[in-house]
Protein backbone atom coordinates (compact mmCIF):
# COMPACT_ATOMS: atom_id res chain seq x y z
CA UNK A 1 0.00 0.00 0.00
CA UNK A 2 1.10 3.52 -0.72
CA UNK A 3 2.74 5.14 2.33
CA UNK A 4 0.33 8.06 2.27
CA UNK A 5 -2.80 5.89 2.21
CA UNK A 6 -1.28 3.75 4.94
CA UNK A 7 -0.65 6.81 7.07
CA UNK A 8 -4.16 8.20 6.69
CA UNK A 9 -5.88 4.87 7.31
CA UNK A 10 -3.78 3.83 10.32
CA UNK A 11 -5.24 4.42 13.78
CA UNK A 12 -2.67 7.13 14.49
CA UNK A 13 -3.17 8.75 11.09
CA UNK A 14 -6.93 8.87 11.51
CA UNK A 15 -6.52 10.56 14.85
CA UNK A 16 -4.06 12.96 13.24
CA UNK A 17 -6.84 13.97 10.82
CA UNK A 18 -9.19 14.51 13.79
CA UNK A 19 -6.62 16.66 15.51
CA UNK A 20 -5.70 18.84 12.51
CA UNK A 21 -9.29 19.37 11.38
CA UNK A 22 -10.32 20.03 15.00
CA UNK A 23 -7.61 22.69 15.39
CA UNK A 24 -8.68 24.24 12.09
CA UNK A 25 -12.27 24.41 13.36
CA UNK A 26 -11.06 25.93 16.63
CA UNK A 27 -9.38 28.70 14.63
CA UNK A 28 -12.45 29.16 12.44
CA UNK A 29 -14.68 29.57 15.49
CA UNK A 30 -12.61 32.57 16.60
CA UNK A 31 -13.10 34.29 13.23
CA UNK A 32 -16.77 33.38 13.16
CA UNK A 33 -17.28 34.74 16.65
CA UNK A 34 -15.54 37.99 15.76
CA UNK A 35 -17.90 38.55 12.85
CA UNK A 36 -21.00 37.58 14.78
CA UNK A 37 -20.34 39.80 17.78
CA UNK A 38 -21.13 42.71 15.43
CA UNK A 39 -24.73 41.54 15.72
CA UNK A 40 -24.69 43.05 19.20
CA UNK A 41 -23.82 46.55 17.96
CA UNK A 42 -26.70 48.94 18.54
CA UNK A 43 -26.83 50.01 14.88
CA UNK A 44 -29.90 48.21 13.51
CA UNK A 45 -27.61 45.68 11.89
CA UNK A 46 -25.60 47.99 9.64
CA UNK A 47 -22.13 46.76 10.57
CA UNK A 48 -23.22 43.13 10.54
CA UNK A 49 -25.09 43.27 7.24
CA UNK A 50 -22.20 44.93 5.45
CA UNK A 51 -19.83 42.36 6.94
CA UNK A 52 -22.11 39.51 5.81
CA UNK A 53 -22.20 40.98 2.32
CA UNK A 54 -18.41 41.11 2.19
CA UNK A 55 -18.23 37.50 3.43
CA UNK A 56 -20.48 36.22 0.64
CA UNK A 57 -18.82 38.18 -2.14
CA UNK A 58 -15.09 38.15 -1.39
CA UNK A 59 -13.47 35.42 -3.58
CA UNK A 60 -10.76 34.51 -1.04
CA UNK A 61 -13.37 33.94 1.62
CA UNK A 62 -15.39 31.86 -0.84
CA UNK A 63 -12.47 29.52 -1.48
CA UNK A 64 -11.71 29.27 2.24
CA UNK A 65 -15.34 28.45 2.94
CA UNK A 66 -15.19 25.37 0.68
CA UNK A 67 -12.18 24.22 2.69
CA UNK A 68 -14.19 24.77 5.84
CA UNK A 69 -17.19 22.70 4.64
CA UNK A 70 -14.82 19.92 3.64
CA UNK A 71 -12.98 19.93 6.98
CA UNK A 72 -16.19 19.95 9.01
CA UNK A 73 -17.50 16.99 7.04
CA UNK A 74 -14.16 15.18 7.25
CA UNK A 75 -13.99 15.75 11.02
CA UNK A 76 -17.58 14.63 11.60
CA UNK A 77 -17.46 11.57 9.32
CA UNK A 78 -14.05 10.46 10.59
CA UNK A 79 -15.16 11.04 14.20
CA UNK A 80 -18.24 8.87 13.78
CA UNK A 81 -16.25 6.16 11.98
CA UNK A 82 -13.72 6.12 14.82
CA UNK A 83 -16.52 5.93 17.35
CA UNK A 84 -18.00 2.96 15.51
CA UNK A 85 -14.66 1.16 15.22
CA UNK A 86 -14.02 1.65 18.92
CA UNK A 87 -17.44 0.25 19.75
CA UNK A 88 -16.65 -2.88 17.75
CA UNK A 89 -13.21 -3.19 19.41
CA UNK A 90 -14.81 -3.09 22.84
CA UNK A 91 -17.24 -5.98 22.53
CA UNK A 92 -18.88 -7.21 25.75
CA UNK A 93 -19.67 -4.48 28.27
CA UNK A 94 -18.63 -4.69 31.91
CA UNK A 95 -21.35 -5.45 34.44
CA UNK A 96 -19.74 -2.99 36.85
CA UNK A 97 -17.80 -0.01 35.54
CA UNK A 98 -16.17 2.47 37.83
CA UNK A 99 -15.07 5.83 36.43
CA UNK A 100 -11.28 5.86 36.36
CA UNK A 101 -9.84 8.63 38.54
CA UNK A 102 -8.77 11.71 36.61
CA UNK A 103 -10.86 11.03 33.49
CA UNK A 104 -13.49 13.56 32.40
CA UNK A 105 -17.06 12.94 31.35
CA UNK A 106 -16.41 14.96 28.18
CA UNK A 107 -13.54 12.72 27.07
CA UNK A 108 -15.81 9.68 27.32
CA UNK A 109 -18.58 11.29 25.28
CA UNK A 110 -16.84 13.01 22.37
CA UNK A 111 -19.03 11.35 19.71
CA UNK A 112 -22.25 12.29 21.52
CA UNK A 113 -21.05 15.87 22.00
CA UNK A 114 -19.87 16.04 18.39
CA UNK A 115 -23.25 14.80 17.22
CA UNK A 116 -24.98 17.56 19.18
CA UNK A 117 -22.73 20.04 17.38
CA UNK A 118 -23.48 18.34 14.04
CA UNK A 119 -27.27 18.53 14.51
CA UNK A 120 -26.86 22.14 15.55
CA UNK A 121 -24.82 22.87 12.42
CA UNK A 122 -27.67 21.46 10.31
CA UNK A 123 -30.23 23.75 11.97
CA UNK A 124 -27.90 26.74 12.04
CA UNK A 125 -26.83 26.47 8.39
CA UNK A 126 -30.40 25.87 7.27
CA UNK A 127 -31.60 28.93 9.10
CA UNK A 128 -28.96 31.48 8.04
CA UNK A 129 -26.46 30.16 5.54
CA UNK A 130 -29.05 28.56 3.26
CA UNK A 131 -31.32 31.57 3.53
CA UNK A 132 -28.47 33.94 2.73
CA UNK A 133 -27.16 31.96 -0.22
CA UNK A 134 -30.02 30.20 -1.90
CA UNK A 135 -33.28 31.92 -1.07
CA UNK A 136 -34.55 34.91 -3.04
CA UNK A 137 -33.98 38.36 -1.63
CA UNK A 138 -36.05 40.45 -1.25
CA UNK A 139 -39.08 38.41 -0.19
CA UNK A 140 -41.19 40.66 1.98
CA UNK A 141 -43.51 37.86 3.16
CA UNK A 142 -40.65 35.75 4.50
CA UNK A 143 -39.04 38.79 6.14
CA UNK A 144 -36.08 38.88 3.74
CA UNK A 145 -35.43 42.50 2.83
CA UNK A 146 -32.68 44.49 1.13
CA UNK A 147 -31.33 47.66 2.72
CA UNK A 148 -29.33 50.47 1.08
CA UNK A 149 -26.48 51.71 3.29
CA UNK A 150 -24.47 54.88 2.80
CA UNK A 151 -20.82 54.03 3.40
CA UNK A 152 -18.23 56.35 4.97
CA UNK A 153 -16.95 57.40 1.53
CA UNK A 154 -20.48 58.38 0.47
CA UNK A 155 -21.13 55.42 -1.86
CA UNK A 156 -24.32 53.39 -1.53
CA UNK A 157 -24.14 49.65 -0.79
CA UNK A 158 -27.18 47.43 -0.97
CA UNK A 159 -27.05 44.49 1.48
CA UNK A 160 -29.33 41.64 2.49
CA UNK A 161 -30.78 42.30 5.92
CA UNK A 162 -29.50 39.11 7.53
CA UNK A 163 -29.67 40.96 10.82
CA UNK A 164 -33.46 41.09 10.48
CA UNK A 165 -33.54 37.33 9.88
CA UNK A 166 -31.39 36.73 12.94
CA UNK A 167 -33.58 39.03 14.98
CA UNK A 168 -36.66 37.07 13.95
CA UNK A 169 -35.05 33.67 14.69
CA UNK A 170 -33.76 34.69 18.11
CA UNK A 171 -37.19 35.92 19.17
CA UNK A 172 -38.31 32.27 19.11
CA UNK A 173 -37.72 30.63 22.48
CA UNK A 174 -37.10 27.16 21.03
CA UNK A 175 -34.37 28.40 18.71
CA UNK A 176 -32.64 30.18 21.59
CA UNK A 177 -32.83 27.00 23.66
CA UNK A 178 -31.37 24.92 20.80
CA UNK A 179 -28.49 27.38 20.57
CA UNK A 180 -27.81 27.33 24.30
CA UNK A 181 -27.83 23.52 24.54
CA UNK A 182 -25.57 23.29 21.48
CA UNK A 183 -23.07 25.77 22.87
CA UNK A 184 -22.90 23.78 26.10
CA UNK A 185 -22.28 20.70 23.96
CA UNK A 186 -19.55 22.50 22.03
CA UNK A 187 -17.99 23.71 25.27
CA UNK A 188 -17.72 20.16 26.63
CA UNK A 189 -16.43 18.89 23.24
CA UNK A 190 -13.61 21.39 23.45
CA UNK A 191 -13.04 20.97 27.19
CA UNK A 192 -11.47 17.69 26.18
CA UNK A 193 -10.86 18.26 22.47
CA UNK A 194 -8.54 21.26 22.75
CA UNK A 195 -5.82 19.60 24.80
CA UNK A 196 -6.47 16.21 23.23
CA UNK A 197 -5.57 17.59 19.79
CA UNK A 198 -2.09 18.49 21.01
CA UNK A 199 -1.53 15.11 22.65
CA UNK A 200 -2.54 13.47 19.35
CA UNK A 201 0.06 15.56 17.53
CA UNK A 202 2.63 14.36 20.04
CA UNK A 203 2.98 17.85 21.49
CA UNK A 204 3.24 17.00 25.15
CA UNK A 205 5.91 18.36 27.40
CA UNK A 206 5.91 19.65 30.93
CA UNK A 207 7.38 22.90 29.56
CA UNK A 208 4.19 23.89 27.74
CA UNK A 209 1.41 21.33 28.29
CA UNK A 210 0.07 23.09 31.42
CA UNK A 211 -0.22 26.26 29.31
CA UNK A 212 -2.06 24.45 26.50
CA UNK A 213 -4.42 22.98 29.10
CA UNK A 214 -5.14 26.38 30.59
CA UNK A 215 -5.77 27.98 27.18
CA UNK A 216 -8.02 25.04 26.29
CA UNK A 217 -10.12 25.41 29.43
CA UNK A 218 -10.47 29.16 28.94
CA UNK A 219 -11.31 28.74 25.24
CA UNK A 220 -13.88 26.00 25.83
CA UNK A 221 -15.79 28.12 28.35
CA UNK A 222 -15.33 31.62 26.94
CA UNK A 223 -15.91 31.07 23.21
CA UNK A 224 -19.16 29.07 23.47
CA UNK A 225 -20.36 31.51 26.17
CA UNK A 226 -19.77 34.49 23.87
CA UNK A 227 -21.58 32.70 21.03
CA UNK A 228 -24.48 31.98 23.40
CA UNK A 229 -24.57 35.60 24.48
CA UNK A 230 -25.93 36.62 21.05
CA UNK A 231 -29.24 34.67 21.11
CA UNK A 232 -29.69 35.46 24.82
CA UNK A 233 -29.31 39.20 24.33
CA UNK A 234 -31.51 39.17 21.24
CA UNK A 235 -34.22 37.27 23.07
CA UNK A 236 -34.09 39.85 25.86
CA UNK A 237 -33.97 42.72 23.35
CA UNK A 238 -30.54 43.84 24.55
CA UNK A 239 -27.59 45.28 22.60
CA UNK A 240 -24.13 46.63 23.38
CA UNK A 241 -24.22 50.16 24.85
CA UNK A 242 -23.81 52.93 22.27
CA UNK A 243 -20.21 53.69 23.22
CA UNK A 244 -19.22 50.12 22.30
CA UNK A 245 -19.29 49.59 18.52
CA UNK A 246 -17.38 46.46 17.62
CA UNK A 247 -15.89 46.25 14.12
CA UNK A 248 -14.37 43.03 12.89
CA UNK A 249 -11.85 43.28 10.03
Amino acid at each position, binding site marked *: MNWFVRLLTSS*LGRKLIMSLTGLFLITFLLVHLGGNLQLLNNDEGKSFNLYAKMMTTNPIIKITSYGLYFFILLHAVQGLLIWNKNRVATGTKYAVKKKS*PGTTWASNNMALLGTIVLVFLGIHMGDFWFAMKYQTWPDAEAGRELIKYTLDDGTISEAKNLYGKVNWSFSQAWIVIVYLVSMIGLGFHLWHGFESAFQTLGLNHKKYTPFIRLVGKIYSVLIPALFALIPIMYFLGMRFPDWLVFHFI
Partner: protein
Amino acid sequence: MAGKTINIKVKVWRQGGKYPKGQFETYDLKDVGTDMSFLEMFDVLNEQLVSKKEMPVAFEHDCREGICGTCSMVIDGQPHGPMKGTTTCQLHMRSFKDGATITVEPFRAKSFPVIRDLVVDRSSFDAIIQAGGYISVNTGQAQDANAIPIEKDTSEKAFDAATCIGCGACVAACPNSAAMLFTSAKVSHLATMPQGKVESQKRVQAMVNQMDKEGFGMCSNIKACEAECPKEISTDNIALMNREYLASVLGSDKEG
Protein backbone atom coordinates in the same frame (compact mmCIF):
# COMPACT_ATOMS: atom_id res chain seq x y z
CA MET B 1 -0.99 -13.21 65.02
CA ALA B 2 -4.72 -13.58 64.74
CA GLY B 3 -5.64 -11.00 62.13
CA LYS B 4 -9.01 -9.50 61.33
CA THR B 5 -11.46 -11.49 59.24
CA ILE B 6 -14.39 -10.44 57.07
CA ASN B 7 -17.37 -12.17 55.45
CA ILE B 8 -17.86 -11.43 51.78
CA LYS B 9 -19.81 -12.47 48.73
CA VAL B 10 -17.83 -12.93 45.52
CA LYS B 11 -19.79 -12.52 42.32
CA VAL B 12 -17.61 -14.11 39.65
CA TRP B 13 -17.96 -14.43 35.90
CA ARG B 14 -18.04 -18.11 34.97
CA GLN B 15 -17.63 -19.12 31.34
CA GLY B 16 -16.94 -22.47 29.70
CA GLY B 17 -17.94 -26.02 30.75
CA LYS B 18 -21.17 -25.75 32.71
CA TYR B 19 -21.61 -22.13 31.56
CA PRO B 20 -21.28 -22.13 27.76
CA LYS B 21 -22.52 -18.55 27.33
CA GLY B 22 -21.00 -17.14 30.48
CA GLN B 23 -22.82 -15.83 33.54
CA PHE B 24 -22.20 -14.55 37.03
CA GLU B 25 -22.20 -16.93 40.02
CA THR B 26 -22.20 -15.62 43.57
CA TYR B 27 -20.29 -17.44 46.32
CA ASP B 28 -20.33 -16.77 50.07
CA LEU B 29 -16.97 -16.70 51.82
CA LYS B 30 -16.78 -16.62 55.61
CA ASP B 31 -13.89 -15.58 57.83
CA VAL B 32 -11.62 -14.30 55.10
CA GLY B 33 -8.39 -13.05 56.66
CA THR B 34 -7.75 -9.42 55.75
CA ASP B 35 -4.03 -10.18 55.34
CA MET B 36 -4.84 -12.56 52.49
CA SER B 37 -4.10 -11.40 48.98
CA PHE B 38 -6.97 -11.29 46.52
CA LEU B 39 -5.61 -14.38 44.75
CA GLU B 40 -5.33 -16.27 48.06
CA MET B 41 -8.99 -15.48 48.59
CA PHE B 42 -9.63 -17.19 45.24
CA ASP B 43 -7.47 -20.16 46.34
CA VAL B 44 -9.71 -20.55 49.41
CA LEU B 45 -12.84 -20.27 47.28
CA ASN B 46 -11.50 -22.85 44.82
CA GLU B 47 -10.71 -25.31 47.62
CA GLN B 48 -14.30 -25.01 48.75
CA LEU B 49 -15.54 -25.54 45.18
CA VAL B 50 -13.30 -28.58 44.66
CA SER B 51 -14.46 -30.13 47.92
CA LYS B 52 -18.02 -29.75 46.63
CA LYS B 53 -16.89 -31.39 43.35
CA GLU B 54 -17.47 -28.20 41.40
CA MET B 55 -15.13 -26.68 38.82
CA PRO B 56 -12.77 -24.16 40.43
CA VAL B 57 -12.72 -20.62 39.10
CA ALA B 58 -10.04 -20.35 36.43
CA PHE B 59 -7.79 -17.30 36.85
CA GLU B 60 -4.26 -16.56 35.71
CA HIS B 61 -1.36 -16.03 38.08
CA ASP B 62 2.33 -16.70 38.13
CA CYS B 63 4.76 -14.60 40.15
CA ARG B 64 2.30 -13.31 42.76
CA GLU B 65 4.70 -10.47 43.40
CA GLY B 66 3.50 -7.90 40.90
CA ILE B 67 6.05 -8.39 38.14
CA CYS B 68 4.72 -10.90 35.63
CA GLY B 69 1.46 -9.27 34.67
CA THR B 70 -0.66 -12.40 34.34
CA CYS B 71 -3.15 -11.85 37.18
CA SER B 72 -5.71 -10.11 35.01
CA MET B 73 -9.23 -9.46 36.24
CA VAL B 74 -11.59 -6.55 36.75
CA ILE B 75 -12.63 -6.12 40.37
CA ASP B 76 -15.67 -3.94 41.10
CA GLY B 77 -15.24 -2.15 37.78
CA GLN B 78 -11.49 -1.55 38.01
CA PRO B 79 -8.74 -3.63 36.39
CA HIS B 80 -6.59 -5.03 39.22
CA GLY B 81 -9.08 -3.63 41.75
CA PRO B 82 -9.34 -0.46 43.79
CA MET B 83 -5.75 0.03 44.89
CA LYS B 84 -3.75 2.48 42.77
CA GLY B 85 -0.56 1.18 41.16
CA THR B 86 -1.16 -2.38 42.36
CA THR B 87 -1.64 -5.72 40.60
CA THR B 88 -4.38 -8.13 41.70
CA CYS B 89 -1.83 -10.39 43.35
CA GLN B 90 -0.58 -7.49 45.48
CA LEU B 91 -4.08 -6.42 46.47
CA HIS B 92 -5.15 -7.51 49.94
CA MET B 93 -8.54 -8.28 51.42
CA ARG B 94 -8.12 -5.37 53.85
CA SER B 95 -9.11 -3.18 50.90
CA PHE B 96 -12.66 -4.58 51.17
CA LYS B 97 -15.39 -4.03 53.74
CA ASP B 98 -17.05 -6.71 55.83
CA GLY B 99 -20.27 -7.83 54.12
CA ALA B 100 -19.22 -6.52 50.71
CA THR B 101 -20.26 -8.14 47.43
CA ILE B 102 -17.21 -8.08 45.15
CA THR B 103 -17.87 -8.38 41.42
CA VAL B 104 -15.06 -9.99 39.45
CA GLU B 105 -15.06 -10.06 35.64
CA PRO B 106 -12.51 -10.92 32.97
CA PHE B 107 -10.78 -8.15 31.00
CA ARG B 108 -13.22 -7.17 28.26
CA ALA B 109 -11.99 -6.40 24.75
CA LYS B 110 -12.59 -7.98 21.33
CA SER B 111 -8.86 -8.60 21.07
CA PHE B 112 -8.78 -10.35 24.48
CA PRO B 113 -11.25 -13.23 23.98
CA VAL B 114 -12.25 -15.12 27.14
CA ILE B 115 -10.75 -18.60 27.33
CA ARG B 116 -12.40 -19.66 30.57
CA ASP B 117 -13.89 -17.77 33.53
CA LEU B 118 -11.43 -14.94 34.23
CA VAL B 119 -8.74 -16.12 31.83
CA VAL B 120 -8.42 -14.18 28.58
CA ASP B 121 -6.18 -14.75 25.57
CA ARG B 122 -3.65 -11.92 25.39
CA SER B 123 -1.63 -13.29 22.48
CA SER B 124 -2.51 -10.10 20.58
CA PHE B 125 0.05 -8.40 22.86
CA ASP B 126 2.63 -11.05 21.94
CA ALA B 127 1.99 -10.30 18.27
CA ILE B 128 2.67 -6.59 18.86
CA ILE B 129 5.94 -7.41 20.62
CA GLN B 130 6.94 -9.85 17.87
CA ALA B 131 6.35 -7.11 15.30
CA GLY B 132 9.08 -4.91 16.72
CA GLY B 133 9.46 -4.97 20.49
CA TYR B 134 13.06 -6.23 20.36
CA ILE B 135 16.56 -5.19 19.40
CA SER B 136 18.65 -7.16 16.92
CA VAL B 137 22.01 -7.91 18.54
CA ASN B 138 24.27 -10.91 18.43
CA THR B 139 24.71 -12.36 21.85
CA GLY B 140 28.30 -12.77 22.87
CA GLN B 141 30.48 -11.68 25.69
CA ALA B 142 28.97 -9.29 28.16
CA GLN B 143 29.70 -5.68 27.19
CA ASP B 144 31.54 -3.33 29.44
CA ALA B 145 28.89 -1.44 31.39
CA ASN B 146 30.15 1.95 30.21
CA ALA B 147 30.71 1.05 26.54
CA ILE B 148 27.46 2.70 25.45
CA PRO B 149 26.97 5.97 27.32
CA ILE B 150 23.49 7.13 28.32
CA GLU B 151 22.48 10.10 30.42
CA LYS B 152 20.99 9.28 33.79
CA ASP B 153 17.67 11.07 33.26
CA THR B 154 17.29 9.42 29.86
CA SER B 155 17.96 6.00 31.29
CA GLU B 156 15.43 6.70 34.03
CA LYS B 157 12.81 7.63 31.45
CA ALA B 158 13.51 4.43 29.55
CA PHE B 159 13.31 2.45 32.76
CA ASP B 160 9.97 4.02 33.71
CA ALA B 161 8.53 2.87 30.38
CA ALA B 162 10.24 -0.51 30.72
CA THR B 163 8.38 -1.27 33.95
CA CYS B 164 5.29 -2.11 31.86
CA ILE B 165 4.53 -5.75 32.66
CA GLY B 166 2.26 -6.30 29.65
CA CYS B 167 -0.73 -7.08 31.84
CA GLY B 168 -3.34 -5.53 29.54
CA ALA B 169 -5.08 -3.48 32.23
CA CYS B 170 -4.75 -0.43 29.99
CA VAL B 171 -6.83 -2.14 27.31
CA ALA B 172 -9.30 -3.37 29.92
CA ALA B 173 -9.70 0.13 31.37
CA CYS B 174 -9.98 1.90 28.03
CA PRO B 175 -13.55 2.65 26.87
CA ASN B 176 -12.22 2.14 23.32
CA SER B 177 -10.18 -0.99 24.12
CA ALA B 178 -7.10 0.72 22.73
CA ALA B 179 -3.66 -0.77 23.29
CA MET B 180 -1.87 2.56 23.04
CA LEU B 181 -0.38 2.67 26.52
CA PHE B 182 1.15 -0.80 26.26
CA THR B 183 2.47 -0.28 22.72
CA SER B 184 3.78 3.18 23.49
CA ALA B 185 5.53 1.97 26.64
CA LYS B 186 7.45 -0.55 24.53
CA VAL B 187 8.13 1.91 21.69
CA SER B 188 9.23 4.55 24.15
CA HIS B 189 11.42 2.28 26.25
CA LEU B 190 13.36 1.03 23.23
CA ALA B 191 13.49 4.35 21.35
CA THR B 192 14.99 6.04 24.40
CA MET B 193 17.86 3.56 24.81
CA PRO B 194 20.90 3.82 22.51
CA GLN B 195 20.63 0.12 21.67
CA GLY B 196 17.00 0.49 20.66
CA LYS B 197 17.34 3.75 18.75
CA VAL B 198 18.94 1.91 15.84
CA GLU B 199 15.72 0.23 14.74
CA SER B 200 13.29 2.74 16.21
CA GLN B 201 11.90 4.11 12.93
CA LYS B 202 11.00 0.71 11.55
CA ARG B 203 9.85 -0.50 14.95
CA VAL B 204 7.26 2.16 15.59
CA GLN B 205 5.55 1.57 12.25
CA ALA B 206 5.65 -2.19 12.61
CA MET B 207 4.21 -2.16 16.13
CA VAL B 208 1.46 0.35 15.31
CA ASN B 209 0.48 -1.61 12.19
CA GLN B 210 0.30 -4.80 14.23
CA MET B 211 -1.70 -3.06 16.97
CA ASP B 212 -4.22 -2.00 14.30
CA LYS B 213 -4.27 -5.49 12.77
CA GLU B 214 -5.10 -7.04 16.13
CA GLY B 215 -8.29 -4.98 16.18
CA PHE B 216 -7.61 -2.71 19.15
CA GLY B 217 -9.50 0.61 19.33
CA MET B 218 -8.14 4.11 18.79
CA CYS B 219 -6.94 6.53 21.41
CA SER B 220 -9.32 9.30 22.50
CA ASN B 221 -6.81 10.54 25.10
CA ILE B 222 -9.26 9.70 27.89
CA LYS B 223 -6.34 8.49 30.03
CA ALA B 224 -8.22 5.80 31.92
CA CYS B 225 -5.25 3.55 31.05
CA GLU B 226 -2.80 5.69 32.98
CA ALA B 227 -5.15 5.81 35.97
CA GLU B 228 -5.58 2.02 36.14
CA CYS B 229 -2.10 0.85 35.08
CA PRO B 230 -0.54 -1.11 37.96
CA LYS B 231 2.86 0.27 36.96
CA GLU B 232 1.57 3.83 36.51
CA ILE B 233 2.94 4.10 32.98
CA SER B 234 2.45 7.69 31.78
CA THR B 235 0.46 8.74 28.71
CA ASP B 236 3.47 10.93 27.87
CA ASN B 237 4.65 7.74 26.18
CA ILE B 238 1.62 7.87 23.88
CA ALA B 239 2.56 11.39 22.78
CA LEU B 240 6.11 10.16 22.20
CA MET B 241 4.80 7.29 20.06
CA ASN B 242 2.61 9.69 18.06
CA ARG B 243 5.71 11.81 17.39
CA GLU B 244 7.91 8.83 16.56
CA TYR B 245 5.29 7.43 14.21
CA LEU B 246 4.81 10.68 12.29
CA ALA B 247 8.54 11.31 12.08
CA SER B 248 9.12 7.79 10.85
CA VAL B 249 6.37 7.83 8.19
CA LEU B 250 7.12 11.35 6.97
CA GLY B 251 10.85 11.48 7.50
CA SER B 252 12.31 8.07 6.72
CA ASP B 253 12.36 5.40 4.01
CA LYS B 254 11.43 2.76 6.55
CA GLU B 255 8.27 0.71 6.35
CA GLY B 256 6.92 -1.37 9.19
